[in-house]
């Protein structure tokens, strides 16, 4: 504990916030893309089946 730099709390908070928010943005964008791709595939498949049936 004695080796910690001065004002380490401020440094840790800055890095945690910046890296945490960046990771959150990246992961949520990735999940959104995956969800939107799956939904589009499902809707396209459904409309294709309807087209074939008609």
């Amino acid at each position, binding site marked *: 504990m004695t080796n910690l*730099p*001065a*004002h*380490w709390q*401020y*440094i840790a*908070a*800055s*890095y945690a*916030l*910046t*890296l945490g*928010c*960046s990771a959150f*943005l*990246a992961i949520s*964008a*990735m999940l*959104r*893309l995956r*969800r*939107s*791709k799956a*939904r*589009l595939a499902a*809707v*396209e498949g*459904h*409309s294709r089946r*309807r087209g074939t049936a008609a």
Partner: protein
Amino acid sequence: MRATPNLLHRYANPGQFLRLSRVLLPWLTAGALLFLGAGVAWGLFFAPADWQQGETVRIMYVHVPMAWLASSCYLGLAVCSVLSLVWRHPLADLAAIEIGPVGACAAALCLVTGSLWGEPMWGTWWVWDARLTSVLVLFFLYLGHIALIRAFDEPARGQKAAAVLALAGAVDLPIIKFSVQWWNTLHQPDSITLTGAPTMSLTMLWPLLLTTLGFTLGVAAVIFTRLSAAIHESRTRQLLARSRLDRTDTHAA
């Protein structure tokens, strides 16, 4: 004059953009992880402490990239607004919607990390200094843009109003850049300029450049991902609307 719209219209095609995005995304992500990892490790553990600021100078390695990204994203927003208002570029509105929250996050992080640096160095979390105030105005402009897009029942009207706001707000960018020269501010002047040599040691400049490059590539990857998702969502909405129309026609017949 002709070359610009031709180039713009080539990437106005969502399919073309998705193909480009698929090629670029792995490279952007890998570059972001590599440069960020190296920059953060260097900045936290290997870069020297500053003779005046001490260890607190390490906050600069995340604060400066956030300040750069907050301004760059807003410039992107303003460019998208021009493309949308002048050329009615179909992807420009979608891009503006996706850039807004990312830029707002960068501006908020710039303000927060600046406060976390200011408390131990200046003895205060906040001063109404020209640089700090102009970045706060930038954050509010982002919030206004996000709110305005969703404020109208008709999405096209909201997008147009938000584009006008983004263009008008672009006047804040030169104010942010030159505030430290135009006014006597507590915030230090720029250490890196395009014209002069950097006023900081290379042992500090390298980790700063690495984290800036890493965060920039990361934000580009996030915006590409969000825009690709928005294109898929828009296509899904179109298909659903069409199938609803078909069903109505069938019932009517």
